[in-house]
């Protein structure tokens, strides 16, 4: 045993000696050096040191140091992002300290584009890069928030709800359906980036024009957002911690401007509303009202409200109890959640300002995020792993997002770095309540009930059960709202769990000197499980007797994409050629399951399981349409003399949803650029550092807006839709079938033809500008062309019919400068404009969309932008009967109701007088990044704004008109509604219709009254930080320590009267994919995204 070891040792020695001697023979020397930056004189970590003309190279370690074997006379090229590359000739074993000069231009930045990386100066297409350092200054809880205001051409609309996804458009809304960009995350195509830890992101590029995005073919038409995550760097292992803790503060004040219970009582008498007057039975009220002396200070509001079948003796069975101030009623209190029909509930009415429903559910909330990242490696392998924990408690009761994420990215190389393989991957586990599934922005959401619930109603009744609309006199003078506190309080045990696994593995090999082959297999596994418990809502007038219930839902999906490419790269003379070709295939599938039960003995969340309830409906499962895409693509990049740049791409895609014969499409693009600054006539113009003009044209597609069975006529069955009790029994039905889908095989993708013209300039050594003009014509929008009812009720097929055209400008500029040794600053600004116009839509040339209790809010019509609001134009208030008869009128017009504009001049107000009342598309959105550093202090401010867009404040439907449902009503109504006496308006300055419960047309119908400016400027972030002296920290083993305090949404400048003008689309308008973008900018009660937040953060590296 011992002997054999000894033998082995001997063999080993010989091998080592041979190896050493071979080193001597090739006369290579171990070269060492240290790289520092010219700006801060700090070590440059991760700079590439390469022997010119070879693939041999290393990366500097955390001290900026490197070591590699080279020969005397070799030229080392040292490069790092943000610095000018420097060549150093090897003259001895030590090269000492090498200083890299800061580049004032980003032209040599490496930019990740479609399937490859390019130097910025060589790019001929439109690629916006997000400055990750700037972007990360916003404490993003969802990664797409990083994009807001950071890249020209990208519009991001955030929801304030924890865990809610943002809406992202590249170059504006350009269709009625799903217009989300394609995300490519480490080579894996995805529909969003929200589950990527913002701290893990290395770079984000946005491919905007055909020159850049057409390489993604049928999926690239909406733009492509390419995300790469960080890799480990060779050198000593480093561990860093990034964390922050903060608190978010709800908006303050009477945010919905709600009137007090006393004011509301006065309105009931002003409106002559006998139904509601029963709430205020004190005879003095009626007397004073008749005398015209009733005011909010003398109106008498009862102390108690009560109601229920188990009424005091002498009442009828259904207990139509009146309301008095008699506390004796308390003894009849009876509550039985299992038999609510026997309830007799009593509540003590809220006085003064009434219940502040907003602040009953919005309270300050803590938030924190922690990320630990470890990375390191050698020249043969690197690794990075990170762990992330996010806990964002919403300011809204029981809304939260908790996220746990782990990432491992590794790279291995062998064969002298000619063969590389690795993986990028992460696992995310999320728990969410509230933000998930878009519970806000709809009339049945908890936020909508904040203004729909009357302030006279208390949070709790006299026994500590919830107060509500039930506990009043019979009928519904307390309205049909829901107690928002009850609604959210009961959500405490609801939960949604998400698990996402995403990543790729890849291999790369260099061969025949100029070729690289790469294969990458990646994908996404997703699982979502949510359950919720529904309580008997005894406090409501409607559904007082509804049984308790629960539902459980699961959804899983998976997809993969497998990408194979071969790249050829060669430089000969003044010609720089790069060609690559690829093959890709993708598949996806998924299923969902949901079940429902009701009538549980107990709602203890530890007890409730579906089998303990009554299954009212059969469980349902859904198979998502499996899809497959198969693609061939290629790209040519050619640069002559570093001056003339040609890029050309072609892609051929086959997509399974389309019928054979319509599955395959070809998407070409070509782009040209001229680095005019390289020409002799400009070379001597000292203030032009670099100037490139470029243009592109090409085609991409969009295949999102089509259902799986579109090509086929199919039949289905549904217990409601096609079963029937043919046997005559009370409770038995027989299965039947119905034609569920009409098929049309002759349907294919939407085509986006994109032209782009622009320039990139680097001027005065301090200023960089990129400006672009584009035109994007989308033809063949997939649209379910309405068919006559004569064809029955089957789903009509989507066909390629609508056309839309977007034009706009994207401009971004950055100015950076240094004043003295201690002060430097930069200002970055970007602006995005787009105008969209519908150019074709099937007969009758428009379709209406956008939920309201009245007509649709939006008309999408040829010649108009997508989503434009459509309704009556108000023109004041009828002051008297003679105005009613002389001005164009309508049925129900009376003194005190709205005058509408007679648009078609036919002398009467009809639906034909509806007109264009506001465009929700902004003229432009903009972002400004201010950065400054003074000595060790740094200062940052990020501003974001939107200009020229209109919002439709549908909240006013509930709050501003007496004729809509009883609920919280606005002070505007109290102060500004017309008061009519003897047929004459006595307050001519009135801007709102007279309070009356019978004026649907003259008051709450869709009109310009609801339309407000949605423009805003938000200070998204302001922060001050301090970086500790590294030389001091070194002594305690710390490489870097940065602490900062930060305020989010420090101010919002807007004229919008609702909570927040930044409005995410409503679930009410996302009925189907084909109309997903057909209506937006409508406020149904949104979660405010302008709440102030204060955080304290640390960045620490060992």
């Amino acid at each position, binding site marked *: 045993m011992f002997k054999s070891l000894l033998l082995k040792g001997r063999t080993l020695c010989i091998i080592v000696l041979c190896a050493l001697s071979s080193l001597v023979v090739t006369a290579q020397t171990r070269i060492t050096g240290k790289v520092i930056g010219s700006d801060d004189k700090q070590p440059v970590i991760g700079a590439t040191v390469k022997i010119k003309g070879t693939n041999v190279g290393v990366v500097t370690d955390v001290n900026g140091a490197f070591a590699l074997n080279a020969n005397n006379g070799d030229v080392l090229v040292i490069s790092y992002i943000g610095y000018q590359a420097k060549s150093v000739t090897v003259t001895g074993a030590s090269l000492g300290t090498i200083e890299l000069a800061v580049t004032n231009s980003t032209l040599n930045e490496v930019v990740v584009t479609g399937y490859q990386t390019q130097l910025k100066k060589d790019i001929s297409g439109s690629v916006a890069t997000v400055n990750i350092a700037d972007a990360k200054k916003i404490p993003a809880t969802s990664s797409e928030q990083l994009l807001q205001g950071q890249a020209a051409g990208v519009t991001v609309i955030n929801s304030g709800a924890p865990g809610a996804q943002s809406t992202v458009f590249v170059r504006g809304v350009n269709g009625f359906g799903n217009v989300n960009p394609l995300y490519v995350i480490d080579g894996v195509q995805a529909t969003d980036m929200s589950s990527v830890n913002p701290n893990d992101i290395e770079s984000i590029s946005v491919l905007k024009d055909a020159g850049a995005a057409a390489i993604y073919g049928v999926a690239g038409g909406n733009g492509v957002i390419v995300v790469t995550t960080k890799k480990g760097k060779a050198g000593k292992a480093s561990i860093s911690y990034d964390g922050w803790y903060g608190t978010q503060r709800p908006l303050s004040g009477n945010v919905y401007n709600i009137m007090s219970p006393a004011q509301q009582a006065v309105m009931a008498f002003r409106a002559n509303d006998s139904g509601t007057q029963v709430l205020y039975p004190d005879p003095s009220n009626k007397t004073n009202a008749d005398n015209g002396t009733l005011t909010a200070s003398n109106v008498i509001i009862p102390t108690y409200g009560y109601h229920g079948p188990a009424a005091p003796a002498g009442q009828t069975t259904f207990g139509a109890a009146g309301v008095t101030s008699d506390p004796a009623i308390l003894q009849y209190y009876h509550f039985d959640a299992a038999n609510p029909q026997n309830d007799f509930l009593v509540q003590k009415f809220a006085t003064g300002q009434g219940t502040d429903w907003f602040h009953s559910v919005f309270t300050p909330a803590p938030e924190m995020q922690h990320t630990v990242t470890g990375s390191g490696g050698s020249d043969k392998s690197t690794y990075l792993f990170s762990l992330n924990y996010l806990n964002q408690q919403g300011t809204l009761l029981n809304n939260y997002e908790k996220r746990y994420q782990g990432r491992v990215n590794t790279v291995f190389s062998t064969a002298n770095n000619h063969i590389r393989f690795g993986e990028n991957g992460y696992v995310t586990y999320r728990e969410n309540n509230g933000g998930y599934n878009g519970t806000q922005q709809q009339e049945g959401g908890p936020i909508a009930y904040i203004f729909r619930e009357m302030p006279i109603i208390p949070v709790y009744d006299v026994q500590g059960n919830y107060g509500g609309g039930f506990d009043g006199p019979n009928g519904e003078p307390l309205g049909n709202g829901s107690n928002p506190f009850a609604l959210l309080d009961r959500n405490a045990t609801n939960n949604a769990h998400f698990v996402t696994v995403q990543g790729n593995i890849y291999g790369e090999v260099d*061969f025949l000197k100029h070729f690289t082959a790469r294969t990458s297999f990646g994908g996404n596994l997703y699982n979502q499980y949510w359950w919720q418990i529904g309580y008997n809502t005894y406090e409501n007038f409607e559904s007082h007797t509804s049984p308790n219930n629960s539902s459980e839902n699961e959804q899983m999906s998976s997809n993969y994409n497998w990408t194979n490419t071969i790249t050829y790269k060669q430089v000969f003379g003044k010609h720089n050629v790069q060609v690559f070709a690829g093959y890709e295939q993708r598949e996806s599938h998924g299923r969902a399951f949901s079940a429902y039960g009701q009538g549980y003995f107990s709602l203890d969340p530890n007890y409730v399981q579906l089998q303990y309830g009554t299954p009212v409906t059969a469980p349902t499962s859904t198979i998502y349409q499996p899809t497959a895409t198969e693609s061939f693509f290629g790209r040519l990049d050619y640069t002559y003399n570093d001056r003339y740049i040609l890029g050309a791409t072609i892609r051929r895609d086959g997509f399974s949803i389309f019928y054979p014969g319509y599955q395959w499409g070809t998407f070409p693009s070509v782009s040209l650029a001229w680095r005019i600054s390289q020409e002799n006539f400009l070379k001597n113009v000292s203030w032009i550092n670099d100037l490139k003009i470029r243009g592109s044209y090409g085609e991409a597609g969009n295949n999102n807006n089509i259902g799986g069975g579109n090509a086929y006529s199919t039949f289905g069955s549904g217990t409601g839709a096609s079963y029937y009790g043919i046997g005559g029994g009370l*409770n038995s039905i027989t299965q039947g079938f119905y034609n569920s889908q009409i098929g049309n095989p002759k349907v294919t993708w939407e085509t986006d033809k994109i032209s782009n013209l622009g320039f990139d300039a680097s001027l005065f050594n301090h200023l960089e500008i990129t400006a672009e003009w584009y035109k994007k014509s989308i033809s063949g929008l997939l649209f379910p062309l309405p068919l006559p009812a004569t064809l029955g009720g089957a789903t009509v097929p989507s066909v390629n019919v609508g056309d839309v055209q977007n034009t706009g400008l994207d401009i971004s500029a950055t100015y950076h400068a240094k004043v003295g040794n201690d002060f430097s600053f930069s200002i970055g600004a970007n602006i995005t404009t787009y105008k969209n116009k519908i150019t074709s839509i099937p007969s009758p040339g428009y379709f209406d969309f956008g939920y309201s209790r009245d007509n649709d809010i939006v008309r999408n019509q040829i010649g108009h932008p997508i989503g434009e609001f459509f309704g009556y134009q108000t023109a004041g208030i009828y002051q008297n009967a003679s105005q009613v008869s002389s001005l164009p009128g309508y049925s129900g017009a009376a003194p005190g109701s709205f005058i509408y504009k007679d648009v078609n001049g036919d002398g009467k107000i009809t639906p034909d007088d509806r007109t264009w009342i506001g465009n929700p598309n902004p003229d432009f959105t903009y972002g400004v990044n201010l950065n400054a550093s003074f000595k060790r202090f740094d200062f940052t401010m990020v501003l974001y704004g939107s200009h020229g867009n209109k919002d439709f404040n549908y909240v006013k439907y509930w709050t501003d008109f007496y004729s809509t449902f009883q609920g919280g009503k606005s002070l505007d109504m109290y102060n500004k509604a017309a008061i009519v006496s003897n047929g004459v308006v006595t307050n001519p300055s009135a801007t709102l219709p007279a309070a009356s419960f019978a004026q649907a047309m003259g008051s709450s119908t869709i009109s310009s009254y609801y339309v407000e400016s949605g423009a805003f400027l938000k200070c998204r972030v302001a922060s001050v930080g301090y970086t500790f002296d590294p030389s001091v920290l070194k002594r305690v083993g710390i490489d870097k320590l940065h602490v900062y305090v930060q305020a989010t949404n420090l101010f919002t400048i807007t004229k919008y009267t609702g909570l927040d003008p930044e409005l995410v689309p409503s679930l009410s308008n996302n009925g189907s994919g084909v109309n997903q973008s057909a209506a937006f900018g409508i406020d149904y009660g949104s979660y405010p995204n302008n709440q102030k937040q204060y955080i304290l953060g640390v960045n620490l590296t060992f």
Partner: protein
Amino acid sequence: MKRSYSKFIALGSIAFLTLTYSCKKLLNKEPVGTLLPSVLANKAGVDGLLIGAYSMLDGYTTTGGTSWESSIDNWVYGGIASDDAYKGSNTTDQPTAVPLENHSVDASNEYLSEKWASCLNAIQRCNDVIREIPLVKDGSVSADYAKEVIAEARFLRGVYHFELAKMWRNVPYVDETITYSAGNYNVGNPGPIWDKIEADFTAAMADLPKTQPQAGRANYYAAEAFLAKALVFDHQYSTALPLLTDLITNGTTSQGAKYALGAYQDNFDAVKRNGPESVFACQMTANDGSGGQNSNEGDDLNFPAGTYTGCCGFYQPSYSLANSFKVDPVTGLPLLGTTSISVASFNSDNKTTSTSTVNAPNYNLVNLANDHGLTATDPFTPPSDALDPRIDWTLGRRGIPYRDWGLCGGETWSRGDIVPYNPTKNVFNHKDIGSTVDNAAGWAQNQGTADNYNLIRFAAIYLWRAECYIDAGNFAAAEADVNVVRARMQNPAYWVHTYINNANPEGGFTNTPAANYKIGLYTGQFAANGKAYALEATIMEEKLEFGMEGHRFFDLQRQDAVYGGPAGASFMANTLNAYIKLDTRISNPVLNGSSFTAAKNELWPIPLNQIDIEAGKLKQNPGY
């Protein structure tokens, strides 16, 4: 080194080619979760398609509307648009129903487009059955069976076209040749289609059996009754007469029971469904696993609010309807004839009134005493007027037993603050709530009932025959038929009685009538007074017998001379305009100041979206 990575390339290439080859079928992905037509080409598939055609009877919508817009009982179009009832609820709840009630409707109304779509959806389901039969090649469908199935499909197609025809009169006729692939789907509406509807029913009669294994299926007599009804609507009384006589003499239900007039209230009781009076009914079911979707969803809104049901207070019986049950205290006959009176009616501003002279029906000179404006604690005694006993099965009024729910709370039960009456016929008995009411939770808790809706019930056969006899000048025979219907109600067992114990309404009823009920027979007045009287009495009888069953609007329409009816020019307009004036003696913000336009509002406007889509083929009805 070179060798080793060329190995990688070789291996990679092989793997690449293998995978690419194996994925040749990659793009073949068939639709999921549905059936292709070939799967249904057998007996079970055909049977299922026929069930799917029946399942549209309840007006279930698969096209995005709501079931109350397309309800088979036509509570909107037949009920609130006539003098039977108001929309109810708060004035602004369901604002699109307002113009339907006050005759200011335009062609863009979503209710109308939903009713239109629902009927045509059903018609194409019938056509799917007929189209599928030739595709069956496996021998599972015999020629005889095919004929019977086609007969049922054509019967249903006739029923659904009939719904279209009564609403719009000028409607497309869509048979099995109309398909997407044929491209012939822009079907015009050049005029009435009674001949085609009659042809479908005639063909159905030829092949339908007299009894059926399942109660829900149409039999020979159901087809005969619908054919007779179509002929009556088409004013072909002499052709209808022998059919009606055959139905009265020989007709049976599909279960073989001889047609008969039994207990009136059983027609509105889920447990007593498919009785001898049920010529053809839509079968409603509850607790069947569908979450209430096969219940009488069309009437979801039509319950007193805040009782056993929390919602929604629609379909409130009108003052006029209640008044019409007044009878002569001596003869027990309805108060026919009119008197010119001066009436102060509310204007559309809901505040002021205008006085005008109205030819008021004699029952409608003053309102029956009611609890309008009273609170629950105010005392109220129901009026002692002599009343037709059908009143308290038709509407709920203060202090009278409301089924087995307790004494009706009158206005305190009705949502909104206009009407003291509540709908009754579509309401369940509380003792049967477990089996006849769907337990699905939601805003409409307890509002999905298994109450069948009788599209035709036997009493109508007598009254239609009376119309035919009047047309033929045989007034005595007409009077005899009307008397058959009235005589049934003379049986006190069919009256509402007081509770044994008001505090325990499910504890049963006494033998004491709940009000002063009286109903008498005609004794030769038809012959003595001639055609106009006979017709007025028959139309009145239809109103009283079928109040709140969704027929009234269409009965007025078919009697009006504008489309060939015998009751004279502007009959419908005069009736409804008088009704509006009289019923707005008490402010009604929906009806105040409104009016019915003759030669226009008898028909509904063809949905605008359909006119637009059909690109010129579909023409609008007159006046719109």
